[in-house]
Structure formats: C-alpha cells, structure tokens
C-alpha cells in the first residue's frame, strides 16, 4: 500500500489529457431538485419520450406519492431519505465532476488491491464521465449483433424497437408494485434493453459496461431483457470495484422475460459506496420450461433492499436465486428472494449466504408462494449466515404459502460463526488470524462463488479479503 500514491499520479495525468470532459450544451438538461409533474415533463422533453411514456411516468408519479414507505416491515432508515433534495434527472454533462485528488484514499486503495485496470479506475471513481471500453469489447458486440441480438440502452430500445419494448415494459414489475418501483417508473433513465431472438445462444456474457453510456450506471436505471424461445443469455451488471458516487439514492427496476425453453442468467455485483441507499426491484417472468437464474452479490451501500424474484408462469419453469451479502459496520444488507409459482410442476431454489462483519447487519427476507390450484411444485430454500464479530447481526424473515396437490417446500436456515478450532489450526500453520478468517469466509461462500464467471470470482475473493481486514484482533 505504500506504493499506492506513486501509482496513481500518472493515472491522473493520463486521464486528464485524454478527455476534455465538459458538455456545455447538456447543462440545460438538469431538472433541478425535487419531484413534481414539471420534473416529469422536463425529463420527457429532454429524452424526447413518446407520449405513452410521458403518460406512464405521470401515472407512476402519482402512485409514488400515494404509497407510504414500507417501514412497517422494513428498516426505519428509509425515513432518512429526503426525496425533495434529489436531482431526478441529470444528463451526462451535468454530472458533478471530480478530480482524482478528491477521490477518497480508501477507494483508491481498494482499486489497487482489486487490480482494477487503470483506465477503469478513473471512471469508477467518478472522475471520468465515460469509460471508453469500445475498443476492448467491440468484437463481442459485433459478434452478438450478427446473431440478431439487440443490445442497446433503454432509451434507444423504446425509440427503435417499440414493438418488442412496449409489449413487456412494466409487465413483470407493475408500477404500483412498491414505492420505489413507482419512483423508478416516473423518472427512469439509463439501463439496458436486450432482445435475444429465437434459438440464439449468446456465448459471451453481456456486460452493462460494454456499452459506452454515461447513463449506464444511472440512479434510476431501467433494464428490460427478453430472451425468446429456446435462446440463452448471461448478463452481468456492476462490478466488484466500489462505485464511488455522490448520489445517495439508487432505485433501479430490472425486468426479465424468458420465453418457452429459454435460459437467462443475470449476475449482479453491487458495491456502492457506504452512503448509498440501494432500493432495487428485480423480477423475471419464466414461461414454459424456461429457466431464470439470478446471481446476486451485495457488498456495498448503506442500505440495500433487493429481493430478486421469479414468476413461474409456464409449466416446468424453473427459478433460482443465489445470493451473497456482506454487511460491514454501518451497513444493512436486506436481501432475499421471491418465488411466485403460477403453473404446475414449477421448481425454485434459493440459496442465500450472508456475512456480517463488525456492527453490520444482514437480513434475509423471502417469499415463496404456491397457490391452491397447482400440482407438483417444489421449492428449496437455504439461508446460511456467518457472524464475524460479537456485535454483528443477522435476521431471517421468510414467508412461505403452500397449498395445492403434491407441492412441497422446505426452508432451512442456520447461523454460525467461524470456528475457533479452524482459526487455531490455520494459525499453527503460519497464517495470521486475519488471513485465517478470510480463508474461512471464502470457504463459506465458495460453493456460490464458483458459479460466478472466472474474473468475478477472483475479484470477489480479493474483495472479501479486503473487507475482512481489521475485523479481527
């Protein structure tokens, strides 16, 4: 870490030379603080939204204003969100600019430790408005486009492909689903739109930051992915590096649609800085014999509330959520899964592993719903929590509704701490207590991490090492 400072200096000069990031014409596109119908009009004008979208947004605004905060079951911390203080639309040029010197040292250190490519660091730290990855990834984009895959921003999606977009937009997650999906529906901008045609199996995982788009990591991104019959896709969002941002509320909506026999895997690694409220609604609609799998990893943020779900609408559809949450001091990871069985012989699997460090709090909240007219549905839920320090906290709040014929559900949860014997054993073999602890924690999540793409699992391992530092001794 002593060499950190020497490494960063050249980084800074290169980036500043490379781009002269000022977009004077875009400064006009700043909707100001607060949220009213005027704000919506403003966003619609700026984005040149069609009329139906304008109407959709205004309706959503109403719903958002009417809905109370869900504090009767969720964290009271939500009351600390001051909705009137936010800017709900900032075009890329209006994003606050920051120099490398202003980036906190711990963020810099983390980049260093994770081995993030230098070019990406400036972007992730919010110094650069854009991350130019075009060169590196254009080959993949080209290959994918040749197969007929549409992979664009949500704005281009609704402009250029309304026939597909409109059919599914807002159908998996209705505006009124919860207060934050309503908020997103009112002010969404950014996010991805993907359509994979029938029978196309996309070999390379698509990543959100393949596209050059300042709106990409937006506050209120909206992603819609449709995988047509028999097609396959893996999508990755976010990255393990801490995303440093001055904006403190992020509320995304992600809708997935898997048509008959399709396979869709959505991987998220969230590592927002610890001042961020991350309130995300994610849900997939799985048709006959299709499979939707969420791999969800939450490491950063102040409060994350995210329960990826699958509506199993077609016979023999399968839904899966694999979730890893790591809550350090000052953090609350309120994550989980929702499985709505709506057809016979559907199966779902939820595996959740959480780690609480320091005074961190990890919560599993789940819903499994099997209504009475269904047959042969199965759910399996496993939640394991690991507590590192005495003041660490973990909660489990599942809700399981079962009716019908031949349906079975099982839920199991356990809470444990790292065994003193294990640590002692490793210390005898020359590891420090911290190293031993890291090794144990990595072992705890190993089954799940193995399912991640290679580069993610390597980064994740380093990240866990990093988070574990200072938690013992």
């Amino acid at each position, binding site marked *: 870490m002593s060499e950190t400072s020497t490494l960063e200096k050249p980084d800074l000069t290169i980036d500043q030379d490379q781009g002269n990031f000022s977009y004077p014409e875009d400064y006009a596109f700043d909707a100001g603080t607060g949220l009213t119908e005027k704000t919506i009009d403003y966003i619609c004008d700026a984005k040149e939204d069609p009329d139906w979208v304008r109407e959709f947004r205004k309706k959503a605004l109403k719903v958002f204003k009417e809905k109370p905060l869900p504090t*009767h*079951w969720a964290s009271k911390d939500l009351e600390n969100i001051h909705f009137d203080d936010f800017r709900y639309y900032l075009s890329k040029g209006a994003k606050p600019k920051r120099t490398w010197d202003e980036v906190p040292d711990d963020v810099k250190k983390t980049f260093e430790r994770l081995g993030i490519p230098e070019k990406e660091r400036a972007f992730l730290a919010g110094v650069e408005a854009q991350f130019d990855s075009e060169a590196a990834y254009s080959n993949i984009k080209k290959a994918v486009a040749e197969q007929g895959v549409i992979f664009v921003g949500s704005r281009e999606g609704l402009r250029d492909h309304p026939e597909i977009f409109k059919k599914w937009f807002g159908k998996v997650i209705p505006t009124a689903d919860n207060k934050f999906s309503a908020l997103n529906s009112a002010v969404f901008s950014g996010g991805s739109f993907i359509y994979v045609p029938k029978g196309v199996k996309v070999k390379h995982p698509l990543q959100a930051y393949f596209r050059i788009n300042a709106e990409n990591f937006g506050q209120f991104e909206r992603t819609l992915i449709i995988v047509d019959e028999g097609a396959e896709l893996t999508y990755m969002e976010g990255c393990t590096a801490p995303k440093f941002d001055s904006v403190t509320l992020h509320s995304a909506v992600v809708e997935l649609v898997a048509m008959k026999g399709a396979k869709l895997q959505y991987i998220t690694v969230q590592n927002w800085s610890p001042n961020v409220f991350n309130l995300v609604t994610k849900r997939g609609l799985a048709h006959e014999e299709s499979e939707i799998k969420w791999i969800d990893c939450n490491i950063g943020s102040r409060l994350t509330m995210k329960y990826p779900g699958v509506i199993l609408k077609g016979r023999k559809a399968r839904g899966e959520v694999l979730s890893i949450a790591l809550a350090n001091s000052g953090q609350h990871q309120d994550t989980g899964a929702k499985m709505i069985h*709506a057809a016979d012989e559907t199966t779902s699997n939820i595996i959740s592993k959480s780690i609480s460090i320091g005074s961190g709090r990890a919560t599993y909240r789940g819903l499994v719903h099997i209504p009475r007219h269904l047959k042969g549905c199965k759910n399996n839920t496993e939640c394991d929590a690991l507590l590192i320090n005495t003041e660490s906290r973990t909660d489990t709040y599942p809700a399981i509704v079962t009716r019908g014929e031949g349906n079975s559900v*099982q839920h199991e949860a356990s809470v*444990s701490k790292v065994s003193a014997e294990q640590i002692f054993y490793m210390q005898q073999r020359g590891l420090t207590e911290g190293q031993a602890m890291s090794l144990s924690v990595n072992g705890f999540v190993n089954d799940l991490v193995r399912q991640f793409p290679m580069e993610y699992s390597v980064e994740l391992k380093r990240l866990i090492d990093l988070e574990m530092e200072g938690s013992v001794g």
Partner: protein
Amino acid sequence: MAGKSGQTPLSRDGSIGPTWWEERKAAAWKKFQAMPMPRRNEEDWRFATIDAIQLGDFQPGQKGSTSAEALLKRSTASFPHTAKAVFSNDRLLHIEGGEELAKQGVVFESLAGALHKHPSLLEKHFMAHPVDLGAQKFAALHAAHASAGVLIYVPKNVDLKLPLVSFHWLDGNESAVFPHTLIVTGENAKVTVVDFLSSTEVGGKGLACGLNDLLVGPGAKVDYVCLQQWGSQVTSFELNSARVEKDGEARSLFVNLGAAYARQESRSTMMGSGARSEMLGLSVGNDRQEFDQRTLQCHDVPNTWSDLLYKNALDDRSKSIFKGLIRVAPGAAKTDAYQNNRNLLLNPEAEADSMPGLEILNDDVRCTHGATTGQIDQDQLFYLMARGIDPRTGAQLLAHGFFEEVIERLPEKKIGEAVRSAVAAKFAAMRSLPSQRVSRPEANREKESETLDVRALQGLSH
C-alpha cells in the same frame, strides 16, 4: 360484544375482588376499547383472516344449558392427577385436591379463591408481563374479564409427581369465557399442569380468550399441556408466556383441535443462564378452520437453550399460519436455539403459511430453523391401501405417525396417550363427514389463476 354491538359485555354483577383487582380490570377494559382491531397489513397479523375474528354478542357468565352433574361426569382425565378444577362458562363447578396439596405448601386455588387467600401472590404475578406478539387488544380483553381459572404455586424443592388439571367448558351458544392459568414455581420445584378447553357441543359457538403464564423459578421444571377442543364455531385466543430463570426448564404443548379461528401466541423468555424452554405445537385442521400461531424465543442472557417444534396436519380448506422468531440479544452468547415448523397438507385446498424468523445479534450462537410443507408420501399410502385401508384412514394413520415426534417429547407417557386419543377422536369425527375435496372445472381454473396472480403480486409489494 365489544366492537360490533358497542354494548358493554362485562356488565357482570358483583365484583369478586379487592380494589386493586377491580381497578386493574377497569383499566384493562378501557385499554381494550381504545385499541383498534388488528389489520391484515400489520406484520403480526400477516396472512391472518381478520374477518374470522368474531367477537359477536357473546357474553361472559351466561347460564349454560348443561347440568353441573353432566359436566362433572365429562370432566375426567385419563391419567392420574392430584388436583382438579372444573369451570363452566367461567363459573367454578368443582375444585378438589387443594387441601391435600396445601400440606406441602402448594397452592391450587381458583382465581376467586386466590383473591381472598393469596392476594399478594396474585397481585405480584397476575399478568405481570406484557403480551407483545400482536394480540395486545385481546390480552386487555382477558385482563378485563378474567375470573375463572387457577393459581398454582409450588414452593421451593417441592416435586409434584402427579399432574394438576383444569377443565374449562363453553356451554351454550352465547358465551364468552376467559380461562386463566398462572403457575408460579420456587427454586427446584417440579409440576405438570394440563388444561382441557372444550365446548359442550361439537358445533358450539362462542368466544374464548384464555391466557396462561408459566413462571419457572431457578432450577424448577414446569410442564404445561393445553388441549384445545372448543366447538367448531368458536373464536379462540390462547396467549401463553413462559419466563424461565437460571437453570429452569419449561415445556409447553398446545394441542389445537377445535375452534373456527384459533390464535395462539407463545413466548418464552430465558431469564437466567442455563434456562431451557421447549415449545411444542400440534394442530389438526378440517373444514375451514384457521390456526394462527405466533411464537417468540427470547434469549436475553448468555448460555440458554430453546427448542420449538410445531406440527400441523391440514385437511379440507383449513389453514395454518406459523410465524416464529428466535431473538438473540447482543449479550446472549452461547445461545442454542432451534425452531421447526412442519406442515402436512391432507387436501389440495388446505393452506400452510410459514414465517420462521431469526434475529441474531451475537456471533457466538448456534441457531437454526427449518420449515417444510408437504403431502402424504404416496408410496406409504399405497402400502396401506394395498392392505385394505381406505385412503382417508390411511392418510390419518400416517398423520398420527407425523405427530409422534411431538407427542414422544412429553415425559409423562399417560398424558401423551390422552393427546393421542384426542387426535384420534378428531380424525374419527372427520371421517364421518364427507371430504370437502372439490375438483375444480377446467374453465374456472384459468380465471382463478388470474386472480391468484394478483394476490401473489400483492404479497410481493408487501
């Protein structure tokens, strides 16, 4: 009574107690009236059919239609016991065994008797600890009306080998009863208590709002069994709490067979190091019965143990809701807690809702929970059918087996036997009724699937 008609149900003549007692009751009644009815969107009432709570026009202290002799004849326990009290519509019909027990310093008195003979004991312990799992309003209702039931006090080092029993009867269709059981034990004392809650008619109506407190002294052991067999149209509340001091052991079993809507809340608080609590539940549902169970295992101090096992077998369109929570306080290291809810659906129309929860604020603990819902194993059923047993009886036989895990945990085998026969009696009664299994025409299924989707989504936004 209360909410709907607005009239004062507790217009009973003749106060039975001292001033403090009557004042408390008046305050409780005020509290009951001031508190709103629970709403479905409250976490503590999630999934509950609030509309099923029928406070109606039931009145306490109604004169029943069954003679005292007939009721006393029916008030028999199949296992040996040392003391017995019988109440009908909250009126004491009979109490025996108290004098003999008094020689050992043991108190077995009706509440009315205890008010005169042991007022300080009652004043100190009667509902001294708040109910906080949702039914606060109904706890206030209980406090306002409680007059029937027993106070049991077992002094230091007294080991009562044989159980003490109480019978509470709901007689007629207009009655409200408020059975109360308060067990206070001194150091190293041992006692087993069994409550029988029944209606004179199988299809009887009424309101039952009972409460029992188990105060387990240091090193003491309290076994409590509540056999709830109210009539099939009764609205029932059974609010239980156990507070266990250092090295004490509480064990409670709630057998739920009767009532249309039965809400049972059970809270165990481990007060001292080495405290143990075993919480057991067994329910058989048929028709449209709803069993609404809320539990809390509260570990506030280091080195305590609790184990919960609730099993429900559900036929017809009956429903069970289990919401449990293990709460481990920051200082409660070496907690060993377990929570398990198992549901057996005997009919596709039956519903089991399960919400097993954990809140762990200390790292040095062993906590696990599990919840499963499933059907009768078809291979096992086939085996029985191949031996000439009809499928319904076969399923019930297998359900008996399913319950064995709970019943076997009772140390007093003869009480276990009584539970078994009560379950068997309920199964026999169910066999005599036509099964309510309805096969839905395909045409309706589509529609239902639509509406159910909506319900599911509402659940999501919850």
